């Protein structure tokens, strides 16, 4: 074995908190992968209701994607020292995120109206489980954005390393939830 080449600095290229967040994302992914595997197994067993997802789900997907972009733009404005853009796009991201949640609820109502109820065929129940638990995680993500907004307006505008890290953590959560939803919606489309 060779002489030690590792230095404190080389290992700390990624901040421990950010690394921890990535691991948490991995475990959340495992939870959803368990459900999607269960979906596949259950679907293969037959007695499966075929239905078309209401279009509103796709509009929601677009809204969530845009919210990810706005948050990213807010972050880059923060780094570049553009206070107004930073604050505006931060709030825009929150509004889009909240809108996503509301419209997901509307989507549930539409599902119910076309006869796909939570306690009906598992094909429908799974959609409620996926979007419901994703929605709960979105609530967590929105909470993180609220904290970011409080920071933005309560603290003096100053892109310090510490505040940049905080923002990056929020950004990571939000992007992750975005990808998670893309995974879910793509999965449902490909499976039906």
């Amino acid at each position, binding site marked *: *074995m060779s002489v*030690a*080449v*590792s*230095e*404190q600095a080389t*290992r*700390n290229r*990624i901040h*421990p*908190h950010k*690394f*921890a967040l990535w*691991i*948490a994302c*991995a*475990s*959340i992914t*495992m*939870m*959803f*992968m*368990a*459900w999607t*595997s*269960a979906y596949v*197994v*259950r679907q293969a*067993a037959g*007695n*499966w209701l075929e239905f078309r997802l209401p279009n509103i789900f796709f509009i929601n997907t677009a809204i969530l994607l845009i919210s990810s972009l706005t948050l990213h733009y807010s972050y880059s404005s923060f780094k570049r020292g553009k206070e107004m853009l930073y604050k505006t796009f931060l709030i825009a991201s929150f509004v889009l995120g909240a809108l996503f949640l509301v419209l997901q609820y509307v989507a549930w109502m539409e599902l119910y109206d076309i006869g796909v109820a*939570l*306690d009906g*065929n*598992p094909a429908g*129940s799974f959609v409620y*489980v996926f979007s419901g*638990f994703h929605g709960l995680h979105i609530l967590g993500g929105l909470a993180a954005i609220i904290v970011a907004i409080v920071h933005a307006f309560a603290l003096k505008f100053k892109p310090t390393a510490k505040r940049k890290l905080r923002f990056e953590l929020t950004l990571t959560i939000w992007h992750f939830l975005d990808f998670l939803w893309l995974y879910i919606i793509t999965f449902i489309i490909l499976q039906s």
Partner: protein
Amino acid sequence: MASDLVTTTYDPDLLIEEQGYDDHFHDHHHGDKYQSNFITHYVFSQDHKIIAKQFLITGIFWAIIGAGMSIIFRLQLGFPEESLAWIKPLLGKWITVNEAGIGTLDPQFYYALVTMHGTILVFFVLTAGLSGTFSNLLIPLQVGARDMASPLLNMMSYWFFFLAGVVMFASLFLSTGPFSGGWTAYPPLSVLPQASSGSAAGMTLWTVSLVLFVVSVLLGGINYITTVLNLRTKGMTMWRMPLTIWAFFITAIIGLLSFPVLASAFFLVIFDRELGTSFFLSDIYIGGEALDRVGGSPVLFQHLFWFLGHPEVYIIILPAMGLVSEVLSVHARKPIFGYKAMVYSILAIAFLSFIVWAHHMFMAGVNPFISNIFVIFTLIIAVPSAVKVFNWITTLYGGNIRFNSAMLFAIGFVSMFISGGLTGIFLGNSAIDIQMHDTYFVVAHFHIVMGIAAFFGMFAGIYNWFPKMYGRFMNETLGKIHFWGTFIGAYLIFWPMHYLGMAGVPRRYYSFETFDAFAHFDGTNKFITIAAIVVFALQLLFVVNFFYSIWKGKRMTTRNPWGATTLEWTTPIDTGHGNWPGKIPVVHRWAYDYGKDGREFIPQILPVSEDESESH
């Protein structure tokens, strides 16, 4: 051999002051600010060493309850005719006393006891109590970190575990009794509240408790992985880490990937119970009427459950393996044999643990062709396991062995792991499972290989690191009595169960009265019960020794009593917050320089000298 070895003398404080790495930790005095009163120091502590003790003592509490339950159901199995009226003050209405004054255990409660025994031991004692304790204690100390990456999450990890315990404890006192459908919680018993009395409120609390527990494991695991990867001190490369750290690290990864899957399964159970979905329920007949659920599959739950369930047994045994590797090496005064092979076998076991789950389901209607694949993967696990066993034995070979309590338990672990592992090869074959499944053979197998063995690893760890935790030693005489009694006793309990299992005696049965074929096992069952009572009493001896030694044990006078190389023994006897009073030690070598170049041992903080032979 050892007599002509030179014992290295060194002053750890001086060395760390000269060689150490200054992280300016003590410039801000944040240690004292947060730990100034009783509540923040002993209750809501964020110090990993205190959290480790909290996990350990909570684990001991649950171990007594879980083991006590097994004694009660063993009494029923061993002495079904004897009166149990004397436990009525404890169990109340679960003991029915007839007119002649003969008390019998309620069969429903018997199932609840079996279920709770499994749940408590698997999750609360051998997951939280073992991995929670030692990952917390040793990861920061052995990698040279001030604390965990996030002390706050670490504290929350303990309190979620505590909360899970409170909920589970409350469920023991429900008038309908705790959950009684087996620790695996198979539907429909777990999903239909009307299925049995324990399936009602008992199961609701059981699910809530375990979801809280999953949160605790995840918060802990995130911390362990991040700390190992990000907070290692200068010079501590991955290949210089002690095997304990490797084991905790891989365990945390397995837990992080498998526990969310368990949570998914539980959430679907909750949906089926409370919201009328039919993931796991179909139109089965209950009381002559068809259930209004369609298309669900109970086997789906088994798939999800065992996708956690199998990695879970490695979550239990890997930390024990890590502790044993370290204890064997320290007390044999020899480097661990095949360090890299040990690491690779941990990795191999971890990988394989994810692709063998269906071997728990051979008899659940799984396609026999698919079973074959799982048989093959299952049997392949024997290879890395055998590598580890070979390396432990080779480490002992020619060693200058100290037969103290820690070492005895470590050697006992190897014995148990071999005995229990060999029966695993029987059970891994789907054809043999036709006879063996759900019999006492299975009970004997997993109790020896992951119950007793994991406990032995835990005991080895406790005896070895007790001085680090409390600055005192545990009593050696009591420790040796504890070991020999438990070692012999455990074999006396579980060895005969193999014969019961081979004859087809099913597990979890309340009574064998109506089975003429098993009548001749009455004596065996009595024998097992008596052995279990003796072993249980010996564990109480351990508990007494443990708590007595915290306050009255022999004081630790030197900071490295075992002559170990690892970093935790370079900290002051009374280790404060931040672990090292000044700078952080820098590591110059791997953790296993014992008997090298004629020197008894060389601590990791000693620089490599010029005339030294090749170093790791």
